[in-house]
């Protein structure tokens, strides 16, 4: 059995764009609340398959012959009530095939029940102008021609056309005429063009008792992620972004005031939402990997208060397809690498893990850390050793961060002795400067408050045991007149 819902207030136009389809969204939502098998025929017409729902609306104490009509009426009545609750005025028709239900819903006000075999009885008096040619795939031009033919034949109602002999109709109008006559008789059988329910990759859970520790939270996360990955797997998709929202009890905001934590307070309640976003370099759908990443992230950025609800949203994307070359050197597996990066970030801090990127400035030691991402370099990988060109060996430099304050004895402008102590160890750099070259004056960023200007010297300092010399770069800050050791040539 099929039920058709026709929304009266909406204009009767065919959906031609996404916006128009969205305009019929209330009808679709209404239909989805009764059946998962929905066809949106036009923007104002929705057909739903209600077969099997007699168990929900089964009447008792009624004769078997009237049972079908009774539960069909109950469903139609329920649909009408729900539509009124949503502010919609609808006609509902129930029939044994979708097209008969459509025509009845469009033409007859209120609730119409058409028992199987009585279609022509209900539809016979309808005007032929209401016949929907698009249901049997007849285009508008051909439909106009057929309408003119019907007018010439003097046909006005569904019944007039249905009573014509089928052989004559086939001889004059072809197969289109046969399909149209079946439509008019209300016996046209077809499958519904189903509306796919929107794919939602979101899992959430409200907790009866607040969770304060990470371990019990991991079990809940595991369950949600399992379901999420199963959904992704069912649609042959993966995700490259996980958004984790933890609803927490009220707590002092001061305990969670890191910049990356996105904490918002729900309006009208004392609960807060602790949002975390885990961005993955490549699409994945590995539950264990997601769970470890979530736990590592929550260990680094714990929620400020006990958790009362959890929600995880996955951003769906196409899965990664990669064919490695046979002779290309091995690279870390993306999943393992992501996990390793998360562990390293937890160990040393996110700002201390990644790839350096030099900044476009002459300021010494100007760089920033960017996320280590191998996906961009994968395409350019080669195994051809002939591409390696030997370059002259370049002197390396090890830079002290921050520069070591030093005491320098000068003669004229030339440094003669130096004494500096490393901050993190007991090592000292002290002794006579054997060789010095400089000064090299540099300055920059004069338009900023952190302007820098200095004289650099490359010096060789006698080692403490006198066996070798340390080659280092020292500089004198021209603003403060203080000396510093910038680093060691090594």
């Amino acid at each position, binding site marked *: 059995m099929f039920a058709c819902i026709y929304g009266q207030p909406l204009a009767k136009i065919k959906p031609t764009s996404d916006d128009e389809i969205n305009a019929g969204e209330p009808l679709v939502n209404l239909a989805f609340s009764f059946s998962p098998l929905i066809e949106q025929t036009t923007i104002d017409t929705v057909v739903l398959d209600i077969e099997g729902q007699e168990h929900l609306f089964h009447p008792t104490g009624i004769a078997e012959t009237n049972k079908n009509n009774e539960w069909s009426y109950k469903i139609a009545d329920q649909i009408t009530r729900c539509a009124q609750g949503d502010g919609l005025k609808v006609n509902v028709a129930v029939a044994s095939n979708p097209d008969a239900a459509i025509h009845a819903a469009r033409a007859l006000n209120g609730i119409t029940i058409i028992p199987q075999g009585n279609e022509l009885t209900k539809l016979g008096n309808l005007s032929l102008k209401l016949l929907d040619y698009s249901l049997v795939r007849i285009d508008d031009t051909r439909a106009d021609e057929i309408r003119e033919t019907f007018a010439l034949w003097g046909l006005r109602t569904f019944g007039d056309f249905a009573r014509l002999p089928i052989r004559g109709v086939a001889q004059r109008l072809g197969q289109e005429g046969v399909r149209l006559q079946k439509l008019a008789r209300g016996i046209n059988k077809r499958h519904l063009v189903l509306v796919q329910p929107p794919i939602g990759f979101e899992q959430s859970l409200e907790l009866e008792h607040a969770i304060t520790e990470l371990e019990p939270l991991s079990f809940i996360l595991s369950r949600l992620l399992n379901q999420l990955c199963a959904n992704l797997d069912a649609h042959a998709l993966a995700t490259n972004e996980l958004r984790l929202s933890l609803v927490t009890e009220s707590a002092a905001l001061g305990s969670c005031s890191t910049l990356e934590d996105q904490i918002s307070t729900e309006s009208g309640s004392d609960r807060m939402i602790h949002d975390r976003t885990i961005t993955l370099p490549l699409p994945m759908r590995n539950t264990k990997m997601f769970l470890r990443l979530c736990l590592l992230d929550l260990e680094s950025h714990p929620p400020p208060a006990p958790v009362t609800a959890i929600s995880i949203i996955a951003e769906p994307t196409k899965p990664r397809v990669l064919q490695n070359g046979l002779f290309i*050197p*091995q*690279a*870390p*597996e993306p999943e*393992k*690498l992501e*996990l*390793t*990066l998360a562990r*390293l970030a937890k*160990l*040393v801090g996110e700002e*201390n*893990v*990644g*790839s*350096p990127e*030099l900044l476009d400035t002459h300021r010494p*030691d100007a760089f920033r*850390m960017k996320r*280590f*991402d*191998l996906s961009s*370099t994968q395409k*350019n*990988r080669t195994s051809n*050793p002939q*591409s*390696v060109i*030997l*370059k*002259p*060996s*370049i*002197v*390396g*430099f*090890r*830079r002290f*961060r921050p520069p070591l304050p030093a005491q320098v004895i000068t003669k004229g402008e030339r440094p003669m002795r130096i004494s500096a102590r*490393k901050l*993190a*160890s*007991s090592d000292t750099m002290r002794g006579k400067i054997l*060789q010095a*070259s400089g000064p*090299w004056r*540099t300055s920059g960023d004069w338009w900023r408050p952190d302007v820098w200007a200095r004289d*650099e010297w*490359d010096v*060789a300092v006698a080692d403490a045991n006198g066996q*070798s*010399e*340390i*080659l280092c770069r020292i500089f004198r800050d021209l603003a403060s007149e203080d000396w510093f050791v910038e*680093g*060691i*040539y*090594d």
Partner: protein
Amino acid sequence: MNQALAKAQIEANITNRFGSIFKIAEKAPTDFLSSGIPEIDAVTGGGLPRGAITEIVGAASSGRASLLSATLTDAITRSETCALVDTSDTFDPASARQAGVNFNSLLWVRCGNSVERAFKATDFLLQSGGFGFVALNLSDVTGNYTRRIISSWWFRFRRAIENTPTTFMVISPVACVRSCASVILEMRNNRALWHTSAPFFQTKNPAAGVCLTKGCQISLVEDPQQQHSSSFLTHAYLLRAIDVRVKLVKPTTWIEGFVRFHQPI
């Protein structure tokens, strides 16, 4: 030297009497990662062994960071993925870029002077696998501290990379990896060249090339085209070059080499 000779003599006596049953059978490395410096590759017999630990020992200004940059450059050029665990946060990206390091394939872990964090980070990297070259820089850790590092760490690292193509380099002021290292290279600053001084490193025969023989030194050709003009000063590079002596300590074949590291022009 005397200790090594004495050890060799004792081993020879034992072998004569009992055969080689007491000798620890070590697998000879078959695959190498080039260090990026032909002279050092010649000393080590092909480069840095894969699936083994290479230890670089030397004091400050002995060319350890230069060797690290050269190896990183060469490995990344060969499409290897590299990782650097920087214990004291002294890696200088600017000089590494001038040496040719492509940072897109380099994972830099800054450990903020914490040796414990550095070892844990190294363990994560080696256990995850897939890296062609991993370096642990302990340059600024004092010798007393590095000697106290328990051996189980090194055994764990050696176990993690054996039978993998990963080359693991440890840079330290004193030898600390001990028996777990397959190759130990000792580096020493021989002399520095300054722009204000005349070049001191002159070979008698400019066309001599490299002479490699066990027990003798390697003479390097000084390329006249690489000599810097004394009037040419780049940004603060007042030091011109460093000459470094490289000695292979393990396996004990006593091969030495000399490398000159230039300042970028």
